[in-house]
Structure formats: C-alpha cells, structure tokens
C-alpha cells in the first residue's frame, strides 16, 4: 500500500525487535510510577478516590498504547545501502525517508545507553554539514552497528566530496 516509501532498489533492512522491548521497558517506568501514585491515592485519601481511579486508568491506557506503539514503530524503521546513498525510513503516522549520499557524510556516531548495551543494540547516527539531516538508525545489533559504521566511513572516504 505504501509504494511511496519503498526504496528505489533493494529492500529495507529492518532493525532488531529488541528496540521495541527496550522502549517498552522505558515506557513501563513512568507508567508504573503513575499507577503507583493512583493506588496510593485510592487507598489513603478517600475523598480523592476518583483522582486515583483516573490515574490508574490513565496508566493502563498509556501502557497499552505504548506497548502497541513500540512494536509498530520498531517495525517501521528500515535502512538500505545503495550504490551512492544510504536511505533511512521511519515512522508510522509521520513517515519519513532520508537519503544521504555517502560523499556528504562528515562523521558517523555509534552510541548505546546502558539498557541498549544490556540488550546488545546500538544507535548509528550520520552527520552531514546540514543539521537538518538527522539520520539516526536505532536498534541495530552491536555487530551490525560496527559493520555499518566501518562501511559508511569507508564509503565516505571513497566518495568524499568535501563540504
């Protein structure tokens, strides 16, 4: 249905499903804090019972929505290495597709937070001279992230076109 965001050649490489797991854990923390506050209100302040109930309901809705969002969003990420450019796509509601010529890359970052490291994934970010480029690929398995970084750096040097 979405031929608008298919790559001109090849297919999208998808990112690791662990990205969804990590995001679900990250969503669970504020959700459980809100739920806890709701339970406390419900038990301790009888006049404010409705606020407690509201908070619990809010937390439940948030948890369900966040769970679904994490899965859908993880499946929407994709990247593909063409002959001359790297293409990255993402988003379910707000879709985007960015194409970055290898020769335009200034540098490549790999980063992984503690949770990402525990699950063995990393984020690769590409920087060009433009701040608008904002091409990051989250949820890459660590080995793939390193491979991609090395490959991109190599290609960047081979195609290098200055600023």
């Amino acid at each position: 249905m979405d031929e608008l965001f298919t790559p001109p050649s090849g297919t999208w490489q998808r990112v690791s499903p662990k990205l969804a797991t990590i995001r679900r854990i990250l969503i669970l923390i504020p959700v459980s804090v809100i739920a806890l506050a709701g339970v406390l209100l419900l038990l301790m302040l009888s006049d404010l019972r409705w606020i407690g109930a509201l908070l619990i309901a809010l937390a439940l809705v948030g948890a369900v929505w966040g769970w679904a969002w994490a899965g859908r969003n993880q499946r929407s990420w994709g990247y593909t290495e063409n002959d001359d450019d790297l293409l990255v796509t993402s988003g379910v509601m707000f879709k985007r597709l960015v194409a970055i010529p290898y020769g335009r890359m200034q540098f490549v970052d790999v980063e992984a937070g503690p949770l990402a490291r525990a699950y063995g994934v990393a984020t690769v970010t590409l920087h060009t001279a433009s701040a608008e480029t904002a091409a990051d690929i989250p949820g890459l398995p660590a080995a793939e992230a390193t491979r991609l970084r090395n490959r991109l750096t190599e290609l960047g040097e081979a195609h290098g076109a200055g600023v």
Partner: protein
Amino acid sequence: MVPVSDVQPEAVGVRTHPLTSVVQGALWAAAASFGLISSIFTGDGWGDMSAVLSLVISLGGGLVVGMLVGYLSWRFTRYVIDGTELRINSGIVTKASRRIPYERIQSVDIAEPLVARVFGLAELRIEMAGGKDSRTSLRFLALADARDLRRVLLARAHGETHEGEAVEEQRTIITVVPPERVMIGTVLSLDFLFAAIGSIVLIVGAIWFGEFVVALGGIIPLGTWLAQIIAKRILQQWDFTLSRGQGGLRIERGLLSRTSQTIPFSRVQGIAIKEPFVWRRFGWLRLEVDIAGYAAHGDDEGVDSSSILLPISDRILADAVIAELIPGSAVDDVPQTAAPKRSRMFAPIGWRYRWVGANERTFVAREGWIERTTSIVPHHKTQSVELRQGPLQRRRRLATIEVHTPQGPVDADGRNLDERDARAIVLAQLDRARAARA
C-alpha cells in the same frame, strides 16, 4: 579531543597587538554601562545610588576588569602559521590549543568594532564547517596585519602554498549600495512600518490620555525593536560594497563598526532571494547566502547579518551576482512542480505560490506570499534529501520534500506537493546530485 601532549605551552609564535587589552577593556565598559542603562530605564537601578554615580562605577569597573583580563589573555595568546595549519595557543590557567587546518577554512572575515577601529585594530574571524564552536577569533591585530593574514589564509585554503607573493590581489567592484537606498528599503519594510506606526500611536495616545507611565511599557519594547531594525538594516549595511577577486566575492560594510567578509566561490552552499511585500511592487529584492558556519552565530531570527549578500537590489544586478556564484542557475525558467489545489487546507493562500524545480545545475524552491522566498541550491552541494508525510497529508495524497543545506537562510523545501511528484523529485534529485559530484 586534543591529545595532552599538544597542550604544552609553545614559546614560539606571534602575539596579537598590545593594544588589545585597552580595546577589550573599553568593550567591557561599554557592555557594563549598556546593561546598567537598560536596567535604569526598566526601573530597577542600584538601590539608592544616583544614576550618574552607578554609571561611573560600572564604566570604571568594566574598564579596569576588562583591561586586566584583556592584558592577561593577550599575554598568553600566541598564534603560529606553519605549512599545514594555523595554531592558536591561549589560556591563562587552562591551556587551550586550537588547530585550524587550511583546507577546512570556509571563510575569513575582518571585523572592526567601533572601539577597535579608533585604535586602528581589527578582529580576524575564521569560519570552519560544523557546529556552534566553528568560529575562531583572533583579536585584535593591526588592520594591515589582519589583511595580510587573511590573504595568506585564503590563499592556503585554496591550496596555494607558494610563499612571498605579497601583492594585493586585483579586485573589481561589482556594486556599491548607496545608504539612501538601504534607508528607503528599510522604511518600506513591513516590520519597520509596524514598529514605527505602533510607537507613534502609543506616544500620541499617551499624551492624549496623560497616562505616560502606563504607555511606557509598550513604547520601550517597540522603540528597542525599532532601534534594532535601524542598527541591523541601516548602520550595519552602510556603504555596502560588493567586489570580485580571484577566489571569491568580498563584502565591505558598516558605518560605525566596519566588517569585511570574503565569500569563496567554492564555499557557497545556496542562495536565497527574498522579496518582501512592499519591495515586490518596486521590483526590489534582497539576496542572502548560505555558507557553512555562518548561521551558527545568528541572532534570534536565525539569520546573521553577515549572510546578507545584497541588502537591496534590482532583478538584473541580483541575477548577475547569482550567475557569478552559481553558474548555470536560472530561476524562473526551470521546469516547475507546483503544489496542487488540494493542499490549500495547509496553506489557504500560500499554496498558490509554492513550487519546486530543477535544471542541470540547481534545485530551486519558492514559497511565501507576504515575503516571497526563492531558494537556490547547486546540485553538488545537496547534503541530503528527505521525503515526509503526516497523517493529514496522507489523506490528501500530499507529501513534503526537503533538500538539506547547512543551517542558514536557504531553506529549499517543497511542502505539500503531490505525493507521486514528491517521490519522483526526491529520486531525481539524488541522481542529479550524484551526477554533479562526479
């Protein structure tokens, strides 16, 4: 980032001009008293102290502290020019060594703030591509030294290494924008009209109703805005001279503080043609240029006044300057893709004025009905290309494309185009950029 061994103080190199500390002190004093004056106006002075006394204290204090700090930092700053890079060692307690490889220099400007100008000094600003820390300043040098150093740096930035060629290069003046034209242009711009009429209405109203204190709250911000517009558009663009040299264009401008900028031909990332509402009736326009590194120092509007290529001009001159910087660009003759009528829910009036197009050399995007903006990006400067679609756009089968350029006045976006057209343009632009780089 810098290896520790590099931070060892080097006893070699050249110091900046000894009068630096005096100028620095005067600049600090000016800043201190300016801050005080504005706080006196807004009503919170320094307790019981009289305004004159506190002014004298801040002026004197600023001068002394500024000169002391200026002297110390001058004492510990040295710069070295060697075969591959310019190195600036500075810092009193924390030593810093900044290296500027010649091939990464985007542009070299000379600025003469009023105080420095009195002493015949100038500040050298070196721009490199990249984030907010990409500008390096050497302050202050004797004007002649600054000019020499700029010539050397620019020559090296273009890969010339032969020494001893100290002849001032040939320059041909393209145009001098007379100050009265800049003034007329400013008076006929909408924000000036708004600020001026607003101030007058407030003052008349205040006198009429006798409530001067109440109206002061409105007059001060409006007046400040007016003063800023005048300073930025008239004083800074005074005697605007655009000339052509071997490596690029040069701009010299300013009434009180003079600025001299160079724009190497090869560093132009894009040009924006801006046609404000009233100016369009007269066929006037303003040209702004995108150079990597400039916009990081922009003011709240996000556009530094140094990105202005021509403050006011007519079509013929503007076309000539554009042709000089981006050969082979043709603005109105390119095949255009306009926004379809079903995009009017996103821009009820503006959709009529939006189109993108491209020829063999450049990508062109136009938008805006109050101020019409045309962005021109040469294909070989295309940084990346983006295609976007939100849920509302999807319903209307629309999509937005962006051709990314370094931060600056140029914004080559085609918003709310037909989705099939948009995808085709993105793919075509990638091909064109690839062909242009080869």
